[in-house]
């Protein structure tokens, strides 16, 4: 006790400004825009705009950005895996995850570590596309993380000790948790990746205090559930039907609806075992977050054969639509189209291509793609490629500019050849791997790009959400797995595989500044402030880089 008093006195005497650290109530999360210095959820707010109200960094001064600190957990014994997480920042403390599941609490101004938590992971964990994690959720003073071996763990934000640890799904069957959980009220909500292993996807809610499962929504409906007739009768295709969850959803408190995008049907590239539209794969589902009940769904790619997961972040905003304000959802999909949906009803309002697309000739008024290509035994050349026009990395919406910023893979293509697919527990259940000119997930060490533009390139594209008009394109010689951040001072941040992190003028796309991070950016940028100074953070390679204006 005396010791504590003494410490406080020292703090006061040395004029060290110890920030108050209040509990992160759900009310704070709902109103995250009222505390722009913090970043309380994966996407910065439950509307998932990945938009920061901070304005210190502007188009006029962005050229003065400089590196403040770097954090990397890697010891020589640890395999290097790309870091896909978006950090959280709460009152001067940053919480993030380094691959696969090392949780750290850092001083957000200096990068110095308070604690680290590394759960023991099952060797049975199997992941298609990297031993990665996309981030944490926080409620009260507890952090929540899904692990690659299918556990959901609650962690004390002050000490880094696990408070509870529940097994959500079986790693030996290919279920893994890579998504940042989302908090709605008193529940932690998460779902499994594993669409390449013949899993049956679900979204599940857990009591934040105890870890007790509250409800579960099956993304592939069983025999007693609505939508089951979109799977072949009399077969077990639905039991391995996919519909994985690996990107965080969004929440609208007025409608009390939780939105999640779902992954590809299984097997990915041979649809013969699953005639039908295969609900609710490649869809957005709107659920009651208290019960898990389905309110509506919209399927972007019925009966998918091209691995066009709809695991993108649902971007929520209210815009003027044909003369009246509407609650909409913006969605740039892996299948090459970007959509405007009514988020109260799921009504399709618009869908237009944002890259070269040849598998469908547009989308009809009902919202059904006018499909013209299928996988064949001889091989079918399809634009966009298997990794899609965009993917899990977040787009951004600036309500101020009315612009929707999409990280885009331009002019990419794959040849899909139908091959055998047989389900064997724990093995991949996919069909034949399609060809690609661009590396699918990650670049090799020392990767070089000697491709011609005809073999694919990358862009950040800005579309007017209301009119659908393309406002600008920032072109890159390589594709990008970077999310986009926009700010209230019209600065847009993004990166790419080439190892640059850069700032663009959000109105024009003009390059304002770039920093060399020396490795692939496969994460979304976020912004926060400590003691009045604005920072921007980005994971690249397997390290975290933090920038601010030169002082």
């Amino acid at each position: 006790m005396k010791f504590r008093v003494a410490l406080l006195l020292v703090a006061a005497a040395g004029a060290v400004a110890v920030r108050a650290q209040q509990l992160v109530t759900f009310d704070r999360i709902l109103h995250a825009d009222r505390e722009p210095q913090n970043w309380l959820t994966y996407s910065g707010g439950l509307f998932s705009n990945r938009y920061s109200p901070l304005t210190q960094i502007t188009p006029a001064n962005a050229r003065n950005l400089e590196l403040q600190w770097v954090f990397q957990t890697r010891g020589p014994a640890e395999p290097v895996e790309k870091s896909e997480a978006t950090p959280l920042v709460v009152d001067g403390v940053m919480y993030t995850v380094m691959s696969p599941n090392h949780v750290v609490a850092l001083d957000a101004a200096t990068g110095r570590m308070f604690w680290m938590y590394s759960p023991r992971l099952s060797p049975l964990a199997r992941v298609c596309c990297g031993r990665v994690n996309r981030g944490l959720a926080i409620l009260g003073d507890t952090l929540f993380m899904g692990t690659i071996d299918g556990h959901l763990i609650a962690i004390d934000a002050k000490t880094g000790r696990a408070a509870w640890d529940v097994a959500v799904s079986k790693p030996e069957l290919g279920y893994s948790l890579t998504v940042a959980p989302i908090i709605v009220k008193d529940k932690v909500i998460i779902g499994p990746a594993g669409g390449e292993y013949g899993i049956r996807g679900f979204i599940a809610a857990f009591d934040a205090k105890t870890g007790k499962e509250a409800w579960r929504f099956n993304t592939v409906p069983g025999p007693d559930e609505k939508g089951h007739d979109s799977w072949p009768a009399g077969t077990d295709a639905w039991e391995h039907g996919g519909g994985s969850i690996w990107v965080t959803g969004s929440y609208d408190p007025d409608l009390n609806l939780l939105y999640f995008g779902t992954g590809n049907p299984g097997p990915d590239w041979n649809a013969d075992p699953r005639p039908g539209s295969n609900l609710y794969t490649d869809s957005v589902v709107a659920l009651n977050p208290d019960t898990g009940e389905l309110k509506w769904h919209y399927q972007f790619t019925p009966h998918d054969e091209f691995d066009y997961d709809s695991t993108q972040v649902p971007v929520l905003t209210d815009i003027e639509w044909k003369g009246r304000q509407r609650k909409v959802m913006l969605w740039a999909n892996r299948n090459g189209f970007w959509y405007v949906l009514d988020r109260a009803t799921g009504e399709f309002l618009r869908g237009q291509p944002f890259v070269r697309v040849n598998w469908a000739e547009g989308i009809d008024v009902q919202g059904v793609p006018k499909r013209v290509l299928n996988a064949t035994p001889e091989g079918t050349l399809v634009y966009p490629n298997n990794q899609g026009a965009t993917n899990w990395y977040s787009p951004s919406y600036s309500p101020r500019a009315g612009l929707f910023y999409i990280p885009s893979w331009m002019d990419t293509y794959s040849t899909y050849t139908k091959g055998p697919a047989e389900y064997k527990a724990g093995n991949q259940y996919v069909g034949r791997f399609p060809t690609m000119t661009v590396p699918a997930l990650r670049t090799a060490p020392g990767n070089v790009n000697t491709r011609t533009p005809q073999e694919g390139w990358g862009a950040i594209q800005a579309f007017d959400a209301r009119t659908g008009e393309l406002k600008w394109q920032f072109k890159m010689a390589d594709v990008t797995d970077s999310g986009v951040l926009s700010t209230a001072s019209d600065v847009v941040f993004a990166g790419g595989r080439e190892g640059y992190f850069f700032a663009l003028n959000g109105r024009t796309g003009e390059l304002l500044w770039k920093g060399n991070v020396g490795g692939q950016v496969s994460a979304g940028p976020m912004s926060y402030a400590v003691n009045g100074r604005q920072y921007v953070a980005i994971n690249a390679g397997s390290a975290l880089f933090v920038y601010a204006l030169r002082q």
Partner: protein
Amino acid sequence: MTRAIALLALALAAAPQEHSYTQADIENGARLYQGSCAGCHGPNGDMVPGIELLRGQFRRATTDVDIIKIVQSGIPGTTMPPTSFTETQAGSIVAYLRSRAPAAPPAPFGRGGPLTIARGDAARGKSLYETKGQCATCHRVDGRGPRTAPDLTEIGTIRPAAELHDKLVDPNTNIRQGNRYVEAVTKRGDKIAGRLLNQDTFTVQLLDANERLVSLSRNDLKDFTYLKNSPMPSYRDTLTPGELDDVVAYLVSLKGLRP
């Protein structure tokens, strides 16, 4: 541990395909294979076209060392990623693959199968390469020859025989991503041509005609072109069919510094 690695490496170097693996190696490799490789290659190793890993049919590798190298480093420009496997781990994957291969000698090459090479004579091919074919005027093998054309030191592990044959007849076919030639014109009017080594949104790296490593800023360029055609002549009419087979046989024999 170190000793084990050294021993394994020695065993692999000395007797690359004699299946001298322990059951533990094979079981360990099976586990690693199913966990990390089966994702793309399939549980039976046959999901990537042209490759049958469990039948000893590889596209770019013949020896165990080749396979270990590919397992560890991946293949740039393809979907085959690098891994963090140690040499021991990669070696156990090879042990597993070899243990599953049929007893008959594996087909030496991928899609093309044992085409062409049986017909050619590598020693005659080497001589043709140096004389009548004038290949050494542009290509480099084992540190000899110019660097502007692709280095052929390990071409036998990169391209199958049938593909090499096609390339000799029609050099513009199947140009690999690493063998692209570009021409840049600076704003001052200087022309710089060479082999494209790397590029990004802001810069270009190349090996120019004088074998200089050149890095250019795109801002300084007036024009930048990818050359469509290979500078190599076709040997369709210059070499007889028999001579073509000989050159292919020689090229196939080029397995690099660690064959």
